[in-house]
């Protein structure tokens, strides 16, 4: 009797509990997984599939054309122009936001209430939607009655139509974006600064290290990880730039500020060429994937 029941327990260890756990595990996951599968995985696959088609957004016209879309992309000057503008924008904005965030964090990493208030000010612009930001800055940059124009007139300068000028449009978008997002890297750097143990600074003080030496030898090296994180997050974010050019310059003047996402948007929803738009999406995805992969590799190296 006893012997059989013992063997019984051994051969089927915790069968019932296992079963219950598995069931409740999937039950808890099911709601999220349903949305995940339907609204993320499936569209992602569908996007790859669409990029192989001539696919119209309305109507039923869809024809399998293999890699023709990719071939067309290769020869499409609008694509290359948009790619160039996107990279340009990200290449300026991401480092600038990083540096700006770092400088602000270093200046505001203090114990005073005033420091806290100032941190709140610089972070605050982050909470506005892109439409509010672009509306505000379109007005600020307006050549007739803008804030800057008012100032320039006051000192006797001729106002500039920033957003209508090929040379000024891109920098204007960059400045707008920096104002919008710089608080976020600042907050990340502040979090990084908080993690540096104060004893290190006290030791440096006893060693008579100058402010500059402390910054270079202690603070900046300690922020290496945060910096990597910030640069990657910012790069990925600005490769996706969309609202600012759409709302402030419509991609102009002369397509000089039209990024990839706007190209996707217009190709699909204005020109109704969804297949081709998907192709551009795939390229954008691959770019962002590479950045993320790069970060993974770099942080691995650093971990060793």
């Amino acid at each position: 009797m006893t012997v059989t029941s013992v063997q019984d327990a051994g051969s089927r260890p915790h069968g019932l509990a296992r079963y219950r756990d598995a069931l409740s595990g999937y039950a808890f996951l099911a709601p999220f997984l349903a949305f995940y599968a339907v609204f993320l995985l499936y569209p992602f696959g569908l996007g790859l599939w669409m990029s192989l088609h001539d696919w119209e957004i309305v109507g039923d016209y869809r024809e399998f054309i293999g890699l023709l879309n990719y071939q067309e992309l290769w020869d499409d000057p609008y694509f290359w122009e948009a790619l160039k503008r996107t990279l340009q924008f990200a290449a300026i904005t991401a480092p600038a936001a990083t540096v700006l965030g770092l400088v602000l964090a270093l200046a505001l990493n203090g114990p005073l209430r005033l420091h806290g208030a100032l941190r709140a000010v610089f972070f605050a612009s982050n909470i506005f939607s892109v439409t509010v930001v672009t509306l505000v800055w379109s007005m600020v940059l307006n050549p007739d009655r803008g804030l800057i124009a008012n100032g320039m007139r006051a000192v006797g300068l001729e106002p500039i139509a920033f957003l209508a000028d090929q040379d000024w449009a891109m920098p204007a978008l960059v400045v707008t974006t920096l104002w919008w997002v710089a608080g976020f890297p600042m907050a990340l750097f502040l979090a990084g600064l908080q993690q540096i143990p104060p004893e290190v600074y006290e030791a440096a003080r006893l060693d008579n290290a100058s402010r500059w030496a402390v910054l270079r030898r202690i603070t900046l090296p300690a922020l290496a990880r945060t910096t990597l994180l910030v640069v990657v997050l910012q790069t990925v974010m600005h490769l996706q730039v969309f609202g600012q050019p759409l709302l402030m310059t419509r991609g102009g003047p002369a397509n000089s500020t039209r990024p990839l996402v706007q190209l996707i948007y217009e190709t699909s929803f204005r020109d109704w060429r969804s297949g081709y738009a998907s192709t551009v999406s795939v390229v954008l995805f691959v770019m962002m994937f590479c950045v993320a992969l790069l970060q993974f590799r770099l942080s691995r190296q650093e971990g060793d």
Partner: protein
Amino acid sequence: MNRTFGDRLILVLVIGAAFVWMMPMLWVLSLSLRPNEELVRSTAGILPWPKTLEHFATLLRVSLTPRWLLNSVIVAFGMTALTLLLSSLAGYAFARIDFPGRRAVFLLVMAGLMIPEQAILVPLHAMLADWEMHNTYFSLIAPRLAGPMGVFLMTQFFKAVPRELEEAAELDNASRLKIFWSVMLPLSRPALTTLGIFTFLFAWNDFLWPVVTATQPEMYTLSVGLGSLQGNFAMSEGLGFLMASAVFASAPMVILYVVFQRYIVQGITLTSGK
């Protein structure tokens, strides 16, 4: 003392920078409070004088703004509540329930972090067009519930809760659902608050997907509606009105920010804490 002098100098410089930083917003606020006749003459100065609330009144009376506000509220609250629910359920399963395939499913879900919204924008639109679901609250909310970030955060959080608590509850005859609902969820209030605030901010400011799926003005969110105003109104006309709508759209966020600033900062530390 050299050091304190340096500190003071830096402080003075940042205070100056902060004023410049705030200037655009303050100026827009002041414009929104000035009558149009005055604005036609000049937009200079920061003080709203003479002042009026007529633009805000117009905003609420003649435009679709109240409707957009309602839409934004529904979308933001709906998205936040559902995200919290789905993320905490899934996070709990990943953190604490032992089921076959857990690791693989978790990796599959986390892989979703690599897929940007732009990569699925077009197929998503095609899909919802097939279902004839555009211009609904469903289409404004549902696609945003698929993001794995909340699941990731909640998984991390639940992993840090001492196991003994759950074991004590198990000995107390609590079922899985009961443990989740009566023990784990109340414990995760800080994490839920942070995730909730970020989701709410994101939902309120969301632009790319709403502008694609909401094509009828009645279904615009505030963010999209404001974008449409920028195109439709010539800047010389109704300037005060336009500025008032910007102020109006951002006011809820400013209030949220002032109230929950602590959690917002905490949340950022969370994302960088890895």
